[in-house]
């Protein structure tokens, strides 16, 4: 019995570490190869560069798959809420639907309106796509500890463990609005223009509570690095297992504010003012078709995935969890659960009017976020003054 548990534990451990082991193996092999003709310092830099490129390619490839799966998941989820089936024809349970849609969109004619602002119109999908991918640099997808004792190697699965990770995420993430404004303006369509301007107005309002909610988290952790924040989060640990925890215990209001602001920032119903279907036809992407539409559409799901991952990292304890699943699986499970909540919201709530929603941001959410920040600051300083000394 003991032995069996040990075997399972080892297997899980291997499953968790396999990525890191491969990574180290490739790194060492490359290093050995490159050292043959380059001085040590240059060889290290070159290998680091190569490894980063490999990592970026892997993340982007996985993101593509996850975006398609998220689209499928959302359509099935909304259908479930509405007593429908959703896509169930392409492949088993309709799993291939996303790929079929992608192929369709890629092969469709790319229509560009004659009177459109050509450059802005063509650039907008790219501008939407780039920050949507860039933000994933600071998401820790997992964690592995290779070796034991003092020379154990801590390896978070993260592309760039920036010490300003949160700031980077918020700053780059809000660039998406530029793309929406570009798409809205470039389409030379009044519905698109309204959608783009709405998006700008919402960004100005909702970026503030979003950022304020994150500042509280940074304050608690004493760091803006996402890896440090995950490590700093409190967990309830019966039997020495990280069972449940995260900053959601200390920052429930911050979490709710973050998610509410994120729904609006993401342009997802009930906050989809920029693309309000009932009012503005399709808002800023009315005129887009084919590949360009696909880029804008997929970028939205990248952003949704990013926000779910960010909330997981900052509030739900990131990769940490009982070791029945590998660390990256915990990140995914939590992110998908959060995404299900977004889908649930989408299937339920009507869209408030934009002026009501702007008023809500300024009159309710920002004061609440400030209050939350103030309370957190007070708590932290008291804690440090009396408990930590």
């Amino acid at each position, binding site marked *: 019995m003991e032995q069996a548990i040990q075997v399972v534990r080892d297997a899980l451990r291997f499953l968790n570490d396999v990525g890191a082991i491969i990574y180290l193996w490739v790194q060492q092999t490359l290093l050995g190869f490159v050292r043959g003709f380059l001085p040590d310092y240059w060889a290290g830099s070159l290998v680091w560069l190569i490894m980063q490129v490999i990592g970026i390619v892997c993340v982007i490839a996985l993101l593509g798959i996850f975006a398609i799966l998220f689209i499928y998941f959302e359509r099935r989820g*909304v259908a479930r809420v509405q007593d429908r089936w959703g896509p169930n024809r392409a492949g088993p349970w309709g799993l291939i639907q996303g790929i079929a849609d992608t192929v369709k969109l890629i092969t469709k004619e790319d229509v560009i309106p004659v009177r459109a602002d050509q450059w802005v119109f063509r650039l907008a999908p790219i501008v939407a796509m780039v920050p949507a991918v860039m933000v994933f640099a600071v998401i820790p997808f997992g964690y592995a500890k290779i070796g034991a004792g003092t020379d154990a190697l801590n390896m978070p699965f993260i592309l760039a463990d920036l010490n300003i990770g949160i700031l980077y995420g918020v700053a780059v993430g809000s660039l998406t609005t530029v793309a929406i404004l570009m798409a809205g303006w470039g389409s030379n369509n009044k519905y698109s223009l309204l959608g783009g301007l709405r998006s700008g107005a919402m960004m100005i309002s909702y970026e503030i509570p979003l950022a304020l909610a994150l500042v509280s988290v940074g304050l608690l952790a004493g760091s803006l690095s996402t890896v440090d924040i995950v490590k700093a989060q409190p967990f309830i640990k019966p039997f020495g297992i990280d069972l449940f925890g995260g900053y959601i215990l200390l920052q429930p209001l911050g979490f709710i504010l973050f998610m509410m602001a994120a729904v609006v920032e993401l342009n997802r119903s009930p906050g989809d003012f920029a693309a309000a279907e009932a009012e503005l036809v399709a808002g800023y992407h009315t005129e887009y078709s084919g590949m360009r539409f696909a880029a804008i559409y997929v970028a939205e799901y990248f952003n949704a995935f990013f926000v779910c991952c960010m909330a997981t990292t900052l509030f739900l304890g990131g990769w940490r969890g009982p070791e029945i699943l590998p660390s990256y699986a915990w990140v995914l499970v939590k992110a998908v659960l959060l995404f299900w909540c977004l889908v649930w919201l989408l299937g339920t709530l009507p869209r408030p009017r934009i002026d*009501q929603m702007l008023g809500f941001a300024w009159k309710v959410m920002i004061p609440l976020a400030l209050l939350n920040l103030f309370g957190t600051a007070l708590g932290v300083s008291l804690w440090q003054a009396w408990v930590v000394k």
Partner: protein
Amino acid sequence: MINALRTETFEINMGPQHPSTHGVFRMVLTLDGETVVDVVPKMGYLHRGIEKLAEENTYVQGVTFTDRMDYLSPMTGNFPFVLAVEKLAGIEVPLRAQYLRIIAAELQRIASHLASIGFLGNDLGTWYSPLMYTLREREIILDLFEMLCGARMTPTYMRPGGVSQDLPEGFKDRCLLFFEKNMPRIMGEVPALLTDNEIVQMRLKNVGVLPAEKAIACSVSGPSLRGSGVKFDIRKAVPYNAYDQFEFDIPTGTKGDNFDRFVVRYEEIKQSMRIVRQALANLPAGPIMAPGITRNLRAPAGSEAFARTEASRGELSVYMASDGGVAPYRCKLRSPSFINLTALREMLLGSRVADVVVTLGTLDIVLGEVDR
């Protein structure tokens, strides 16, 4: 410096191809930012000349066209046409047929209001959830119609002199089962999803206000008029067929805003259920067709008739004049959706773009009826 900031209004075409104009309806909106400055409704994209077609076809054949007018409530579309023919030709309709007509019309009213509530949810931006729930129950009413007369959307059930077919076996039980099993569920879900939801109240209350005097002056009818607080229902004011034998209330609103109109529709579903229950309980025996009705029905020359009914969307009336032939000499269809649009401009001025679609949704027009 402030003066240098010049702003301009701009025009935007809402429709004819737009997800929330409920068909091929076009509004030329003049917007100042998001505020509506002017509205010019344009219709006619679905004009099929049903009045002219009715003049070309016999009295019996004309019923088929009234199905296609208000395609969300064809049974109530049939009603005034056959009433006008009966008035014109002086036909006495058997009581059983009158009851069957009322059962069909009231079931249709339930179906139509359910669809209206669901589509309003869609206009508000709920991703089809209320629509799916209400259409689920509406499907069953359409199934009942299929049992009754063989068609779901275009029943042609009422005929001059009566109805085409008697109640099929098991209809009554299924209808009552539907009322007991399904209707309470949806009647509980609509308040939970929409009426009590604060976002919906924020969106609907004090928007698209239509005061009572304005509503009467603009000839607005149906739930839109009652939402403004006018207790006027043709079923009570000028009872037709056996409607004076039924007990039901007229729900009214107070302010005439979108919320009132929405709630009036919801309450009318309950009243329609009351009527159908009474009709099914007291259904008299007898023939379903007046004797001596042939396909070449003729009315005395020079006679004229004006039949007024309360359809799902308001007063649907038919003016019919005869020249003694087999077809009406003139058949005018007074459609509620069309005339309710008279008040649209005043209701929309000063509201936002998002309110335009919602106000249009609570006004509940059907373009097949607007353009005829």
